[in-house]
């Protein structure tokens, strides 16, 4: 779902890509003709004309089993060109989970972040590909060196210019990276919080073998916990903690 201009935008509904140019009063189905059984991995519209849709299909559990097709339009989805994604050979055997993020800085310069492996451990790692021909061919701007500190991060990506952009990735999908060379290299950006507002998110628990103990929860979570406890016939007593 994306509002591209005050009255123009797209939304996915029931697996269909819908388009409006009058603020949602009328919708047009502009779903590209994807392969049978394909799932939509990523959608990006640069403006009210140029858009790209990435389809994933095949066998995600088998090396080289997951395949991608890219649909391209330059007329707001009135017509689409759908082609198999041409990625570097050395990436073809990788185990991608099908999750992806697309970003274009202009109609020809684009980036594709393929991520989410078979388990959560590989989430946030993957490969970023780049195109300079509108999506017809893709290359990896980052060639792994396998040296210490060289990690292949991948995740939601935003490119401001063909050289400068941002990416959120890493094992917890919560690390911020910046590139200033068109995704050839990514530098981690560390932001130290000036305030510690997440003390209660640790949910400290301390229970003994008889399941007697304490659990610290923020108010909303405590409310749900008490409702659950009542259903399970578990006894809870609530105590207010001082706010730091």
């Amino acid at each position, binding site marked *: 779902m994306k509002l591209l201009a005050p009255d123009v935008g797209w939304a996915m509904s029931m697996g269909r890509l819908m388009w409006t140019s009058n603020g*949602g009063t009328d919708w047009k189905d502009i779903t590209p003709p994807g392969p049978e059984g394909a799932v939509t991995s990523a959608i990006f519209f640069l403006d009210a004309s140029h858009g790209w849709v990435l389809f994933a299909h095949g066998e995600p559990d088998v090396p080289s089993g997951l395949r991608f097709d890219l649909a391209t339009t330059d007329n707001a989805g009135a017509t689409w060109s759908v082609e198999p994604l041409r990625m570097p050979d050395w990436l073809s055997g990788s185990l991608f989970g099908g999750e992806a993020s697309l970003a274009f800085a202009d109609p020809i310069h684009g980036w594709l972040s393929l991520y989410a492996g078979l388990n959560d451990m590989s989430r946030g790692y993957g490969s970023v590909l780049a195109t300079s021909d509108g999506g017809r061919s893709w290359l990896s701007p980052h060639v792994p060196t396998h040296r210490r500190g060289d990690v292949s991060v991948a995740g939601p990506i935003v490119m401001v210019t063909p050289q400068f952009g941002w990416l959120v990735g890493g094992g917890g999908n919560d690390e911020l990276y910046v590139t200033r060379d068109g995704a050839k290299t990514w530098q981690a*950006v560390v932001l130290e919080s000036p305030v510690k507002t997440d003390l209660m998110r640790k949910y400290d628990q301390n229970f003994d073998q008889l399941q007697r103990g304490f659990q610290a929860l923020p108010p909303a979570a405590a409310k749900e916990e008490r409702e659950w406890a009542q259903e399970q016939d578990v006894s809870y007593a609530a105590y207010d903690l001082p706010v730091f």
Partner: protein
Amino acid sequence: MFATEDGGVTWKPDRILTGLHDASQESTVHSVVVDSTWIAGRAPRRGLPQLSKLGPGASATDSTMPAPEESGVSQMSFATASQGWVVTVYGKLLSTNDGGATWTDITPGPPQAPTP
């Protein structure tokens, strides 16, 4: 929230955001930045989305604290600070032209069967 004016070389705290963690859903409330205004949205189980807006230099007291029984908005997109869309966790697509004061349900209907 941190802000940079030199392409990310240096960062400084810009404003304090509250209510962005949806404890009942164990998730982060979706939010967007548009026209230098940070907009976060929540939607009651029954009702219309409630927006929290923070301009530059705003503090926690400037935000609208959502009620605990509210749940998160699943997606947000704003073209301007007043014109935007929100998808609720229950699948409704709503639009606003006045910064969230009023909402219109613009959920696309099911695909139309082709006319024979």
